[in-house]
């Protein structure tokens, strides 16, 4: 498989809401099989970048996806009312009627426990209300939903909270596994530099403008992080020196 095939080129990208410049002068490219991390402080325009890449907001400049690519998106958060009468199964059937495929994709995102057969558990989950899932379960369900129709590219907007810390590591292991199994290219917004070092082969730093771009171990030096986060950066790195 050709790994140096460029599937996304972004040039001089800008997004304005009314007169407010939210993103300015972004330029980068993504090759097939890449894992590109997007980092930046809160409100720096990361999620807006995703929305521009998905064509959901008007923008200036160029966003060129290779032809015929299928994109899938895992949003940062969903406001699901606990009372919403929608079962997990119905949520999946919005996208595909193939029950076998739904169960298999749930298995592949690790919906299982020690006491049950995987298929049994997946089928049990399908009858639950979507709003009753725990944060970690919902995250897995959303990822399963995103990969259900075999996308080429996955855009993953990491939740700032909602996943239990123990589960956080496994979500990324899971994403890596899915990437290998399904030849995915991934763009992920992350708040966790440790994840970026460990999983991404490219990173862009955004604070309205692009303040760094390249291989994480090369471009994420203390100067770049201070520029991006101010005082916060040392806190981020320190925190993940510990084992949870």
């Amino acid at each position, binding site marked *: 498989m050709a790994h140096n095939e460029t599937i996304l080129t972004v040039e001089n990208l800008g997004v304005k809401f009314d007169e407010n410049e939210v993103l300015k002068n972004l330029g980068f490219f993504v090759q097939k099989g890449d894992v590109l991390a997007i980092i930046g402080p809160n409100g720096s325009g990361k999620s807006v970048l995703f929305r521009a890449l*998905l064509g959901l907001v008007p923008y200036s400049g160029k966003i060129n996806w290779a032809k015929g690519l299928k994109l899938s998106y895992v949003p940062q958060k969903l406001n699901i009312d606990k009372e919403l009468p929608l079962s997990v199964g119905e949520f999946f059937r919005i996208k595909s009627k193939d029950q076998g495929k739904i169960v298999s994709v749930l298995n592949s995102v690790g919906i299982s426990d020690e006491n049950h057969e995987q298929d049994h558990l997946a089928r049990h989950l399908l009858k639950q209300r979507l709003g009753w899932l725990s944060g970690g379960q919902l995250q897995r369900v959303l990822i399963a939903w995103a990969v259900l129709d075999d996308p080429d590219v996955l855009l993953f907007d990491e939740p700032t909270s909602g996943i239990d810390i123990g589960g956080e590591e496994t979500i990324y292991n899971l994403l890596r596994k899915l990437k290998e199994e399904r030849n995915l290219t991934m763009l992920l917004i992350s708040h966790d530099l440790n994840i970026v070092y460990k999983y991404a082969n490219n990173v862009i730093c955004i604070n309205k403008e692009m303040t760094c771009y390249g291989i994480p171990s090369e471009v994420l030096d203390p100067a770049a992080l201070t520029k991006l986060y101010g005082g916060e950066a040392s806190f981020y790195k320190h925190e993940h020196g510990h084992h949870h």
Partner: protein
Amino acid sequence: MGIITEPLLLQLMVGVLIGLGAGYLGSFMILKRMSLVGDVISHVALPGIAIALLFEVNPFFGAFGALFLAVLGIWFLERKTEIPSETLVGIFFALSLAVGILITPQTELLEALFGDIAEIALLDVLLTGILTAVMLFIMAKIYRGLTLSVISKELAQSTGVNVSKTSFLFLLMVALVVALGLQVTGTFLMGALVIIPAAAAKNISLNLSRYTMLSGIFGAISGLGGILIATRFGLHPGPIVVLTSGVIFLITLLFKK
């Protein structure tokens, strides 16, 4: 209970169709958190009915015209801002009710406010039947996109759903069903028939297919039961239909999931 006469049969058919349509659509109005919009929107129909009466046109068309303008307004507000402009909608609709009361001919006012099915003809039944079928057909086309956009607009858009178009079609169907329902409940109570059966169904449903189906069935039972009871005791059907749905709601509350 007496023999079911032919006019009663026509009334029951209209009542069931309208209950079914209002209940089913109402289930999505609750999902979209539009319960109050559903309530006040029906008031807008009054000036429309009044104008239709003045020009001697079928009141349905006057009501639908006014409701169409109202949903157009709501749709623009929805597009402009994430927050529903409840205050603005509330003020505008209350004002249109006031204007409606002023310009509706005195003799027709009670009928317009509370509905009147005494003179329902076969043509009304046919119109109601055909338009309810059209509504169900369009809902079958858009309900997936509608459901997804309730969960997340962005998720819906990212899978190719035209959220704005879906929302507009839905509001159009609301205008249609409310305009049809005015015959039975009038402008004051139509909002209740949209919301109460759906609220009852939500109490006892874990999934969407059961919820929307029960919602339609509860609406239909309210129409059927309400008209039968009202006829039996010589009461005004509109309020009895709404009260029937209220009784169903109370019963479901006991079995709330």
